[in-house]
Every structure is written in structure tokens, then in C-alpha cells.
């Protein structure tokens, strides 16, 4: 089986979610655009890895596209130039796909930190001793009693 084309249909409002379908086209290459009565955006992915976006009346995201090099610096991961080149389109593709949430009407919906929050589960603010310190120290790559060694810290200009 070759790569699959992914057809995503954006829903509009959470009040009238009639056509919320997740669609998988098993044949590779371009799929036809179906027309629906709600405004929507179709993100079509063909096997050459290009993203073709058809927008309608919905507002486009005004956010800057991801700058992979800068993100890598923030995340402290030393990417090689070829990795940056390889990742950038894939990341762009996924971020574009994330963008469909921009068009959902989320007015007055509270964000959930997690599924369910019970009453406070915090323990008393009292220090405790962890018994197996030797094992933790044994795991340190560069240790010189009593210091964990790291190279010098350079100040950024």
C-alpha cells in the first residue's frame, strides 16, 4: 500500500456539528473536494508531500509559521541543517493541520486542564529523605564528589 491521502473536513460550530466526519481516502494522490453547506477548509495532502490549502470565508491564521531553527534553539536541541530542512515541511504540515481548531466556535467554553479534578491531593509541605541516593548519584554521567560536573556556562551577547 502506498502513502495515504488525508482528507480533513473542518467542522464549524459546536452547536450544529452535522458533518463532523473524519475521512480517509485509501487511494493515494489528490482527492476531489466535496462541497458542503457550511464554510470549511479542506487540507489536502498528496503523495508528493505538498500541502494545498483551499480557504473559504474563514479567517486565516495570522500567526507566524514555525521557524524550526529558532524552535530548536529554544528547545535546546542542536539540529543539523539537513535535519532542519527535513523537519520543516513536516512540522509545517502538522501545524497547518492544527490550525483547523482556529475555526471552531469555542466562545464561553472553559478550558480543561485535565479530565477530572478531585479535591486537593497535595501533601504537607514537609521535606522527606529519599533513601536510594547512591543509585541516583551512580546515574550521573559526570560526578566529582560532591558536585555534578558540567562545562562552563557562556554568557550570551
Amino acid at each position: 500500500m502506498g502513502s495515504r491521502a488525508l482528507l480533513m473536513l473542518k467542522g464549524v460550530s459546536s452547536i450544529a456539528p452535522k458533518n463532523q466526519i473524519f475521512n480517509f481516502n485509501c487511494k493515494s494522490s489528490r482527492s476531489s473536494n466535496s462541497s458542503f453547506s457550511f464554510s470549511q477548509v479542506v487540507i489536502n495532502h498528496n503523495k508528493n508531500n505538498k500541502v494545498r490549502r483551499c480557504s473559504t470565508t474563514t479567517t486565516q491564521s495570522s500567526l507566524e509559521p514555525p521557524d524550526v531553527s529558532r524552535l530548536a534553539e529554544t528547545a535546546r536541541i542542536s539540529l543539523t541543517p539537513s535535519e532542519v530542512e527535513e523537519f520543516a515541511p513536516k512540522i509545517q504540515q502538522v501545524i497547518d493541520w492544527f490550525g483547523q481548531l482556529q475555526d471552531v466556535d469555542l466562545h464561553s467554553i472553559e478550558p480543561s486542564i485535565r479530565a477530572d479534578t478531585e479535591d486537593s491531593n497535595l501533601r504537607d509541605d514537609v521535606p522527606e529523605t529519599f533513601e536510594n541516593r547512591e543509585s541516583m548519584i551512580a546515574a550521573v554521567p559526570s560526578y566529582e564528589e560532591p558536585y555534578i560536573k558540567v562545562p562552563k556556562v557562556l554568557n550570551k551577547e
Partner: protein
Amino acid sequence: MLGTLQPPRTLSRFPLYLTSRPVTLCTLTAQSPPSTSPAHSQILSIRHSLLTRQVTAAQLAESYLSRLRLTEPHLKSFLHVSDSDAVLRQAALLDQRIAGGEDVGPLAGVVVGVKDNICTADMPSTGGSRVLEGYRPAYDATAVRKIKELGGIVVGKTNLDEFGMGSTTEASAFQVTANPWDVSRVPGGSSGGSAAAVSARQCVVSLGSDTGGSVRQPASFCGVVGLKPTYGRVSRYGLMAYASSLDVIGCFGSSVADTGILLHAISGHDRLDATSSKREVPDFASQFASINLLESKPLKGLRVGVIRETLDEGVDAGVISAIRGAASHLEELGCSVTEISLPSFSLGLPAYYILASSESSSNLSRYDGVRYGNQAVADELNSLYGDSRAKGFGPEVKMRILMGTYGLSAGYYDAYYKRAQQVRTIIRKSFKTALDENDILISPAAPSAAYKIGEKIDDPLAMYAGDIMTVNVNLAGLPALVLPCGFVEGGKVGLPVGLQMIGAAFDEEKLLKVGHIFEQTLQNCRFVPPLIEDDTAW
């Protein structure tokens, strides 16, 4: 009969074989294997055999170890296998205690596999990543500690996609696990090693983790039972965090009963996990004995909702057929089955990936080469971080960290992370409404059966798309059980398909009851892969 030595958490009498009960042929599109009695609890038969002195724990352990050694070159389920001597020593200690008439725990003699993102103090725990190659944790995860306290023997650490990010084990830094039903196919992921190990009877039960379906999808692909508990039911202490608001530790078994027994063993409040629930843990296991399978409609009155959005275009016809067959089987058992719709179902997938990649970018920032793990050579600190992480992380992990970093950046938080959390609220509410009107909801666990190794590796969105059946359950924090319900064509004798049952929060008891009855009344389906010798004991 089971011995009468009954420590508080053991199980009452369990009928192993019943003569007359309602039967439904499972939907088969491939050559059906010879019919046989349904899966029985290996944990309970092991217990019975040990307490009646028919076999010793050492003999049992040796038989699992030898099957493991025989099948491992083909499957590669394990990243680390315990030293045989250590395993046999533990088994011998158990034998001594049994001989001395002492009480033994409900997992006595049970050989267990543990996913390698769950910390075990006496074994390496790599999370499937080079960044933690050779790392030995200073403590056991709470779930592991409980298993050991109840007599379980950990036989090894199973393979996974790196830090749980993936659906096939192809993103493991070390090896790809094969599906015991067809070794050219993936076992699913990220808990692919744990699923394959139970499927191939390399161990009795295993632990996995489920953030977006990582227990349920491999259970479906490997033809075993997989259970994702409610968020908070099982302590996450010792589980290497991927997405803290979504992660749970889950169980694999070759029968619903075994999965339930393991769940009971590891559940409960833990002061070391602030998200762990204080809710009482029902005795999940003993209910199996009281279920009357001789009744003609044992599930009479149970309301089952089939999630319409999961049987649409894009799902394999064979999978849809298997699920519809399962729905008919449930009707035969007395359920009232209706089709229901979950609004915003399809929004769950992007919302999940935003939340998961954002949280993972934060959780994985601890892997900096300073306090543990692989350390790169560098002459200044930022390069130490950057190079250790660049060398240690695989490409999928790097990409998700970068996406998460983007999603959480100043100015983008509202657009992505916050909106995803709002979508989570919508999904929670829609499940709650559906589960007020139904006892359980059913769907496939994946849009297809196991696909070939290498098939989806270049296309991130195609791989993510396969999670559509499972992620919403994590967003809502609900429990779900996957059990094999049929086959599609492929491999030597067909490929298994799993039925996913979703329950209300903390209602694992109901899921296990329904799953057990479903399993025990399903005829003409034998879920033992051809790789394993036909052995009536298993």
C-alpha cells in the same frame, strides 16, 4: 478447586468451563481456526496448579522463559530480559512459601512484562530512547512495586516507540517488534512490545501505557485484551511522563479476567502521584465468579451505544464488519444497541496532538545529559544540552518537541494549547451525555488491522490519523477495554480485530463484566497466533 488460603485480595471461585450459554459466531472473513473453548484466566489456573502442587513456580517460570527465548529472535518484544537465575530464584522462594503453607498474593508465580518507560530499579529503563541507554532508575514505579508485593515476577522490559510517541514501535531507538500474527507486520504501539509478549505467551500479563491509544491499538493489532483505566485510577509514579494530563498505565492479558486481576493489583491511591484518585477500588476480579453465564440474556438491560463516527468511510470494511458482528453478539446477550453520535469527535485528533506535543516538550526538557542518561562531549553548557539531546532523541521525538515548543510559545498559547483544552471540555461533555444515556459505548480500536512494517513511516499525518478511535477517550480521561472480536484477511490465518468498549469514569468494573461475558460467549474464535505451538494449557 482453588486453595482455601485467601489473603484479602484474592479471588473467589471462578467457573472455568460452562456447558450451555448463548453463542454467536464471530465475524470471519478469513479461514477460521479450529473452534475451541474461550480464553480462560491463566492467572487463576496458575494459582490453582501451584496451590494443588501440580506444578512449581520454578517449572512455570522456566517454561515461559524457554518460550521467550525461542520466540524472541522473531519478535523482539523485549529490550531487556531478566537474568534467568534471578527469575528462578524468585520462583523458588515462592515455592518455599507455598510448601510452608504460607499465604501467597493473587499474582503468585505470574510472569509479567513491563513496558520500558516504567521504572524498574533492578533493570535498565530506557523509555525506548538512546538518551536513557543504560539508565537504571533509583526506584520501582508504584505499579511495579505492587506487582512484586503480590507475588508477580517481572521477566523483562518491553519495547516501545520512544517515550511513547508512536503507533508501531518503529520509533524505538533500538528495534522494531514484530506482530506474532504476521511477523512482517507491526504489533501496534507505543506498547507494541507488551502486546506482542502477551500475544506470543512470552509472559502471562504485561504493563503498558496509554496516552492516545498506546495500550488499546496494540491490543487490537495483536489479538489480546488491553485495558486503559480511568485517569487517576493507577498511580503514574515511575511512568516516564510523555503528556501528564493524558498518560495512564494500562494492562494487557490474554483474557479479560487476567486483565482485570492485574488492574486490581496496580490500582489505588498513591501519595506519590498528586493526580492519583482517592476513590475506592472495587474488587474488579471477584465479580467474574458471580456472573451467571448460564442465564440466556446475561446482559439484559445494558444499553450500548455504537459511535457512528467510528464506522464511517476511512475504516476498513473488514473492521466495520467485525464491530457490527460484535454489536449483534451483544444484542444476543440481551443488550439494547443503538447508534449514537458524538459531536466534535473529529476535533479530538488535532486537539490531542497539540496537547500531547506541548506537554511532551515540557516533560522531555529534563533529558539534558546532566543528571542521568547519555552525555555528549561539549565545552560549554548549552552545547552540552543541545548535543546530548540531538544525539539522544530520535526524529519523531524531536519533531514533537519542536511542535510543542511552537504551540506553547508566547503569543501562540491561546491559539493552540488553550483552544485544545477547550476542545477537551467539549469532548468530555459529549462523552458524559452519551454515557448518561448508555452504559457503555463501542467502537473499533483502530481503522484497520495491523499493517506492514515500514508502511506509514514517512507520513506523520497518516500515522496520527490511525489514532482517531482512541484519543478522545484520553482527552475525557475515561476507561476503555479492548478485546478481540473477530478477524480480517491477512497473515496465515487472518489478523485480529479488537472491539473497544468505553465506560463512564471509574466504571472499570462494568467494562470488565461486559467484556468477560462477551469473551466467554464468543464461539469459533481462537486468539492464539500461529507462531505459538498449539498447547492446550494456553
